Structure formats: structure tokens, C-alpha cells
């Protein structure tokens, strides 16, 4: 791999990743994962509130 091309590729990695994160965020799969995670959070909070302090 040519050094200059590789250097440019490494330098621009953060930009590519920022675009990827945004694109993934907008997908149906990502929205589904987040919805399920918020449901799990609510279950955890509900169970925690029912615990009787020792």
C-alpha cells in the first residue's frame, strides 16, 4: 500500500466513522435495539424500586 494513500486513509478514519455512526443510528435495526434497551432500563428501574432496603 502506498504510504501517502495509507496516511490519508488513517487521517480520515474519524470522519468515516462519524458518518457510519450516524448512518447506523438511522437504520431500523438500530432503532429496534434502542427501543429494547429502553424497555430493559424501565424493567430494571421498576425492579429496583420494589426492593426493600436491608
Amino acid at each position, binding site marked *: 500500500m502506498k504510504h501517502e494513500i495509507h496516511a490519508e486513509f*488513517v*487521517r480520515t478514519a474519524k470522519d468515516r466513522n462519524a458518518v457510519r*455512526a450516524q448512518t447506523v443510528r438511522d437504520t431500523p435495526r438500530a432503532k429496534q*435495539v434502542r427501543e429494547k*434497551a429502553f424497555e*430493559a432500563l424501565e424493567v430494571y428501574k421498576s425492579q*429496583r424500586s420494589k426492593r426493600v432496603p436491608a
Partner: protein
Amino acid sequence: MTFILEIEDLRSALVPAIDKSMRFIQVQIGFDPDENKIFTLTVQLDVPGGLFGDELSFWVEAEDADGKIETYWDGLETRFISRFYRSQILAVIANSTEVLLNEFEPKSVIMVASSANLPIRATAKYLKIIEVFKKLGYDNQELGRVAGVQSWRFDR
């Protein structure tokens, strides 16, 4: 911040999504009940084009109930997660990488470190991922550092 590890069932979660030509695995890894935040991990195999084959990248995101999202690329940013939990999350990154490689069978993959001049402890996650590539028959080569940033190439 109170990070509670809760990784969803990996048998159902480690299913690669192919969406808008992107190939990734995203799983819930935990939440913060005090700040009403959820945390997800994404591992992605993307094709940046040009000479480079595929590129492997991964990140953690936190989202609060108002939809405010923070993205963490580096272990230095996730010190609020305990070392034990981080090791569990690293195992999910390695498992997800293995699933993606088995599913899509890329011939060449490149991986770029998230930060420059990483301390030895911070390179552990990359070493674990390199082991996954080796296990699957890839040759690995550390490429020259660019402004202190390491990168690796894997071929088979």
C-alpha cells in the same frame, strides 16, 4: 454515572444487519438508571472503497430519554465502565467481529486505532481482535504509524 452491564442475549443479538449497504452488529450492553441512559455497542464491517478492502470499526453509544446521543470511540472516554465490565464488552466486540467475518468473508480488512500513541493497556482490545483474525486464517500486518495512529491489515 452508574453503568449497569446488561448485554442482551447474544444468541439472538449477534445477527448481522445489512442495511443501506452497511454490515454491522449492534447490541445493547447496558444502561444508567440514574441518568436514564442506554448504552449500545456497534461493530461494523464497511467498504470504504479504493485499495483497502473492508474496514472494521466499533463504537459505544449512550442515549438518554430525550434522544441526546454521545458516541465513544476510545477506552479513554469510557472510564466510567469498570474494568470487569469492559472485559465483558471486549468479548462481545471479538464475538461480533468473528460473526461478521464468517458471514461476509472479506478477503482484506483494515483496522485503524481510535487514537494516537495508545498506551500498552489500551492496545489490548486490538490485540484481542487480531487474535480473532488469526483464528480465522488471516495473515496480519501492522502498517506504519501515521501521526502516532496504529493500523493493521488482514488478508487471506
